[in-house]
């Protein structure tokens, strides 16, 4: 893996007062993203607006496509044209992108998609918050595949994790998702953008061998195949059909087995290197609260109150939601009374916690169906009940 310093052209070094949506755009520019295709949708549009305003003086392309189907499709083209590419959307647009998220996974294409979540289903709550696409991001497209999803809890993290998303997408040749929500997207806070030389970027894994020998899907030692760009004389072929290392379609069960296992195992076997979470006071905890995004900030207050009341409560804040920190949940499940999982949906990540806990400790949801954040007291009450 080759690391390089960020190009100062895209880095707005300094201390700013930005909302999460703007911070995502700045993160993308700092990461060297030169291609943005998108379609307006509340509450994510500000990212597209910021990018469209900034890119002409940096060098790159912003294009507003005819819909989200086209936006994600254009990203795939741009990535194979050699650029770092991103789009941003919310629920309904995210649903439309599912088709070509599958293609991006199948073609092992590095790209970044930010989802500023709102309440659903359907048109739902365009202007109000939700965390209801957390399962869709993992399972929404058909077939078996693995992706990486990150969940920022602040505008600062929107900036930091967007850069991280680009790095992970290049490292693993996979679509990476920045799963934020309306609350963080529209929240204004201090965002510190470091000097370019302090921003480390992962360079695409470019192929340099003989042209006739290039195989677009031949796993390297680290399982990740090398990439080329169109126009460099490799005459590569890539297809959404089940394919071999050459990229040629092979329609049988044997090739399907190799192809699908590779797409999944290149992430599953590296899960420990990818997964990031913050853990606090779990050593002697009876109860562990697992949260992510805006909900982790509400959780902070509930947990403070619980500790003041003498309850032994620890926390895990998920930074990577997918892949999921299965091992750690399994370990904790053996020694605690219960997990509490507050999220702004009617029970999504809690199902994964329950699966990992495997009956060793209950996973108790604190559901909020969307439109606003939890009342910290609801989380507090759940902690108190579980601790007794």
């Amino acid at each position, binding site marked *: 893996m080759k690391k390089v310093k960020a190009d100062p052209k895209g880095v707005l070094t300094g201390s700013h007062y930005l909302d999460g949506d703007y911070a995502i755009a700045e993160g993308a520019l700092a990461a060297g993203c030169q*291609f943005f295709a998108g379609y307006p949708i509340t509450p994510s549009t500000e990212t597209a607006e910021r990018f469209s305003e900034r890119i002409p003086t940096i060098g790159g392309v912003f294009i507003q496509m005819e819909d989200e189907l086209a936006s994600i499709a254009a990203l795939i083209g741009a990535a194979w044209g050699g650029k770092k590419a991103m789009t941003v959307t919310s629920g309904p647009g995210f649903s439309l992108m599912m088709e070509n998220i599958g293609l991006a996974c199948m073609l092992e294409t590095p790209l970044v998609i930010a989802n500023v979540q709102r309440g659903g289903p359907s048109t739902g709550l365009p202007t109000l918050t939700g965390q209801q696409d957390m399962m869709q991001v993992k399972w929404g497209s058909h077939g078996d595949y693995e992706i990486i999803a990150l969940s920022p809890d602040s505008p600062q993290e929107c900036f930091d994790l967007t850069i991280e998303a680009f790095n992970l997408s290049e490292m693993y040749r996979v679509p990476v998702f920045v799963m934020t929500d309306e609350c963080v997207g529209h929240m204004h806070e201090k965002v510190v953008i470091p000097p370019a030389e302090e921003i480390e970027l992962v360079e695409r894994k470019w192929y340099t061998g003989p042209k006739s020998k290039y195989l677009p899907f031949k796993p390297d030692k680290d399982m990740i195949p090398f990439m080329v760009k169109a126009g*460099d004389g490799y005459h590569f072929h890539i297809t959404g059909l089940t394919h071999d290392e050459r990229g040629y379609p092979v329609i049988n069960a044997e090739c399907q087995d190799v192809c699908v296992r590779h797409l999944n195992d290149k992430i599953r076997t590296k899960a420990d290197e990818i997964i990031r979470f913050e853990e606090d006071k779990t050593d002697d905890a009876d109860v562990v609260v697992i949260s992510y995004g805006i909900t982790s900030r509400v959780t902070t207050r509930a947990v403070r109150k619980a500790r003041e009341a003498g309850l032994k409560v620890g926390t895990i804040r998920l930074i990577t939601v997918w892949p999921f920190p299965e091992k750690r949940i399994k370990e904790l499940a053996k020694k605690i009374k219960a997990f509490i999982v507050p999220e702004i949906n009617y029970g999504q990540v809690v199902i994964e916690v329950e699966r990992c806990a495997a009956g060793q400790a209950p996973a108790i949801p604190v559901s909020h169906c969307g439109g606003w954040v939890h009342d910290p007291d609801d989380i507090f009450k759940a902690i108190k009940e579980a601790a007794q």
Partner: protein
Amino acid sequence: MKEEDRLQERPPIEDFLRMDRIPHIWCPGCGIGTVVTSFAEALKKSELDLDKVAILSGIGCTGRVAGYVKLDSIHTTHGRALPVATGLKLANPELKVVVFSGDGDIAGIGGNHFIHAARRNMDILIICVNNFNYAMTGGQVAATTPIDANASTAPYGNFEYPFSLPYLAEASGATYVARWTALHLRRVTKSIQEALGKRGFSFIEVITPCVTLYARRNRLGDGLNLLKYYYEKSEIQHGADTRTLDISYQGKLIVGKFVDKEKPTFLDCMNEHLGKVLGDKYQPYGVYHDGD
């Protein structure tokens, strides 16, 4: 030439094909192969650097073309070849980008992408093989099926108005529009060659027989019969008003080059406009070809 040498001689089209993927999947008598031959011939005549030509297809019989042509090639999802091509072209503007796909892909599921790529005048050439039905899935009715033609999902005959693709292309902003039948080999080749030499959104429709489904279901004979039939039913009218190009079932086919004009492309417009508004602060984007 000695018999031995003749046997060893390779057909010139082999240079353009992935011979390790031949034989292809198309039915005997299908017109797609003929259009691919014209494309290969046009590429050769155009003297373009083949390293800088990319081809994209969607799904369907014609969608398989990208898999057989030895260029940078992407076989995308159904209807999405054009937006993928848009991203590819904008990411690497020195590429000549060709979308080679069927009527269902381009005018059905990808119809919205088609009109918008034309509106923007994206510098992309589209070769659309129109066989009047969804062939790969078994001969279903399409957005191009003529009224009264039979299809597996129009078993009593089609009663929906079809699109006239050249009219749609011109109305949406295309700068080069032509229509031929697959038997107009030289004309198809010439059109593709002309369009490869142009900048802007070019659209070439090629009417081809679908022997296995459309022809059989409508009792129109074999591939050669239908190929000849389309050819004989066609009338060349260069510059014809695209509003007059409707295709009726087994009726007359107006063919020819209907539109050939110059207009700044998406990137031309972007660079000119942003350069004007932002002045020296603007970072011009992309590499430019000289128009022929």
